[in-house]
């Protein structure tokens, strides 16, 4: 690891100030960041640890929204009675991230900002049409993820919380890559008054909406509605764990299972 300065501010405003100086990076749990620093893949002048910024940590219900603070660890989301009651798909998603020790430390905001193509949370952001609230603005979930490890966040912008609309039905089904246990294919489906959303992670360079499936499921929210629906492998990932062709097959099959789980 290259050395860096370390700051642990107590507020978002202070963090934003520190982040503006030099080539600084936010530390929001570090489950991906610290391993990448150990490999010397990145170099920063300072890390600004959000661990002491308590007002962006926590879970609450706000009208028809579940609001999760960016610094809420996955384990807290997974164990939350509130989440389990009003949006159990998010609890089960959080419960499947990494492993129990990673979940104790890793946070939702960290996962989102990192935008790993195989991370779980991005599928929920897209799959529910959530809104991302930063210290500067609100970003529609649909506009947040831009590519491999790329988001709509500007330099120095800090995620504060995410507002997840509470759907009528939702589920997340994950097919794990055998080594990393990240999503080889993960599918978040939801049904609400606004329609059906199907968001797929792990299969492509970035999380995406499976629009053909959404259209079919909008007519009938049932696994059988997906019969005959396919996805082209052309834009999907191909690696030692799965070819694009197999991923294409899995996207449909995992969608089917997610719909079943959401019934």
């Amino acid at each position, binding site marked *: 690891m290259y050395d860096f300065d370390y700051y642990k501010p107590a507020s978002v405003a202070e963090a934003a100030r520190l982040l503006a100086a030099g080539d600084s990076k936010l530390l929001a749990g570090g489950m991906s960041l610290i391993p990448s620093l150990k490999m010397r893949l990145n170099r920063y002048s300072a890390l600004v640890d959000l661990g002491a910024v308590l007002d962006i940590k926590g879970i609450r219900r706000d009208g028809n929204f579940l609001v999760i603070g960016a610094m809420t660890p996955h384990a807290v989301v997974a164990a939350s009675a509130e989440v389990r009651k009003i949006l159990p798909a998010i609890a089960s998603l959080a419960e499947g991230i990494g492993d129990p020790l990673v979940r104790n430390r890793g946070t939702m905001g960290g996962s989102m900002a990192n935008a790993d193509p195989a991370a779980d949370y991005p599928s929920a952001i897209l799959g529910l049409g959530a809104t991302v609230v930063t210290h500067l603005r609100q970003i529609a979930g649909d506009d947040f993820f831009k590519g491999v490890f790329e988001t709509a966040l500007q330099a120095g912008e800090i995620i504060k919380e995410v507002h997840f609309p509470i759907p009528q039905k939702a589920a997340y089904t994950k097919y794990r890559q055998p*080594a990393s246990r990240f999503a080889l294919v993960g599918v978040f489906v939801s049904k609400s008054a606004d329609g059906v959303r199907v968001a797929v992670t792990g299969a492509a360079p970035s999380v995406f909406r499976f629009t053909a499936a959404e259209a079919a499921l909008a007519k009938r929210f049932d696994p059988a509605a997906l019969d005959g629906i396919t996805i082209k492998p052309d834009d999907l990932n191909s690696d*030692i764990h799965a070819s694009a062709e197999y991923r294409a*097959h899995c996207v449909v099959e995992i969608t089917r299972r997610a719909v079943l789980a959401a019934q």
Partner: protein
Amino acid sequence: MSLTPKNHHIGQSVRRKEDLRLITGKGRFSDDVNLPGQAYAAMLRSPHAHARIRSIDSRKALAIPGVIAVLTGTDLRADGIKHIPYNVFTLHPAEVQLENTDGTPPFVTPCYSMAIEKARYVGEVVAMVIAQTVDMAKDGAEQIEVDYEVLPAVTATRAAAEPDAPRLWDNAASNVCVDAEVGAKEATAAAFARAAHIARIETWIQRVTGVPMEPRAAVGEYDPATQRYTLHAGSGGSVRLKKDLALILDVAEEKVRVLMDDVGGNFGTRGMIYPEFALTPWAARRIGRPVKWTCERHEAFVSDFQGRDLAVTAELALDADGNFLAMRGSNIGNSGGHTGSFTPLQKGVEIMSSIYRMPCAHFRARSVVSNTVPTRPYRSSGRPEVMFVMERLIDIAARDFGFDRVALRHRNLLKSTELPYTNPFGMLYDSGDYHDAMDKSLTLGDWAGFAARKAEAKQRGKCRGIGMANYVDTATGAPRERAEVTVHPDGRVDVVLGTISNGQGHETSFAQLVTEWLGVPFDSVRLITGDTDIVQVGGGTHSGRSMRMGSVVIWNSAKEIIAKGTRIAARLLENDPSVIQFDNGRFKVQGATPSISLFEVAAAAQRLKDLPDDLRGPLAAFSDESFNEASFPYGCHVCEVEIDPALGTLEIVKYSAVDDVGRAVNPMIIHGQVHGGIAQGVGQALWEQCYYDPASGQPLTGSFIDYAMPRADNFPFFDAEFTEVPCTTHPLGMRPAGEGGTTPALGVVINAVVDALSEFGVKHIEMPATPERIWRAIHDSKNIV
């Protein structure tokens, strides 16, 4: 666990002595060693699979604060450091030797601890930086400028054997280093000519790696006053490491000391000397300070020796009744960038026919170099590969020609009355009851009840399959072992032995032997293995040799101690040695009550001035023996899997194992070895592979993010039992137990997977049997239908 020990004797599941320190964080592993004033090394490794090194410029690196030195292959050669003395073949007299058919000697590459002129795999050490801290050493390594001429690379085994493949060694005619034939060619051809059926397989037992959980580490020291090097590093044996180091450093053996305490796993890939183990003591001499190096996991994936990687084409000839007539084929092993060890090739091809009655056989055995990390024997070196081939061939024959899998095996499996049996390659199987192990395994795995379970699974939309595999495992290894046993008057017994425990619980098992034979308290026994200033002789831990050989030399020593003690006791009890009895640690006159303990006798030996010379002084004995016979553990495993045909995902739902251990010293430890062995075998069958990009030779599995290690949720509980048919070539009847878990696991898992897919007409699936491969097999068969 129901294995409650009654005492500390042989056959009891005695809880392990070593555990107290390991469960409290007081173990002492290689990286726990720190010496005053030590500097730290970082290795600059080749980023290219194949490249000529035109020049190395270290000036910028040397300017980095804290950097003490940068050393390269040129410095190594200039200092007269020799190449690594790899013993490429096992020369054990019980084993079949591979000789080139054209009479030429095998091509053995000179392997230096750093690349000389050329780098031949990604990860080969190109330079070493020594600095005040690890981070400074890494800073320095980043600043070294190496001018490489990148060359075409070849990684795949069959491709490397082609005459027009990129050539690794300019002075070799090809990448083929060994090209031998074993068995009887003409008789085999004749048998095939009259065969009613011929089963065929072409397969690749893929490249995997050992992954001991403790990364390697080394601390090298040099004392200019005594001109002695000391190396602290965990390995598979201290004495062999010392001898190798002395040759590399070009000094007398007494100028080298090797020390190791706890070793966090070995599995064969950690068993032999590594370049860094020579580089650290050499660097310590150069800079005048101890030098420490600790491997990081990503580094281990390109520098820890890898294993398996065998390309096989094989055929099995049967008569109309299903009797095996002959087998033939070709095996190609892949040595990687250097020829470190041909033993997996050798130890495999000599038992291709397993424990079946096979009138004749003929195989070609080749080994190639390629632009991959060098390979070494990996848990049960060579045998899981060929057991996989044999057991697949039997299932293929059963399917293709209409035989029952169990009946076909029963028909051809050697009966105990046929033993000893010389197999068609010349290996002599001593003893065993193969049918009994197979029957017990089928019972344990409830083979008879499988049809009902399969039907039930079908109701749930799952394809359930069952497989079986018999196996034999040739245990040989470095033949010489020595024990020195000393009884101290203060109630301690020291056992000096040339093995090393890498997790096998030697401190416990060997203490059980001493407790049994000398009747001393279990806690009084101390095992000393990891210091070459004390341990002078011994072959370390590999090929199921530690208990097999250690037991005999300890037994011999114990007998001598009792004999000496009897004479001393006779003197103390004022009687003739012929009437002295030794029982449970005490000597007495037959029929009389007074007795004296072994420790009292030991005290007398040191106290009494008028004893004969051979009895005076410490009560001690040693035994130094060479073991020229192989041992053949065997057994049978049964595995059941359930496949979700929509995704190709798989679950192991049942795994049963029956292994013969001859005579069990500690059943608890044996079961643990079997469990772990199974997991490593299943890991290869289903998940693990070191992937290389075929075009560039870049390794694609560089961390646990891509190398799929078996985890707790991949397995059910195992049903493991053992049988004890005394081994006739071992004085105490013991057979090794450490490799049996792995040996049949590859074959049994794939047999189960193929069975599960039989309804789709799937005939074979390659390892690792990933969900995608399974899905494709189903998918392709549906397309055909």
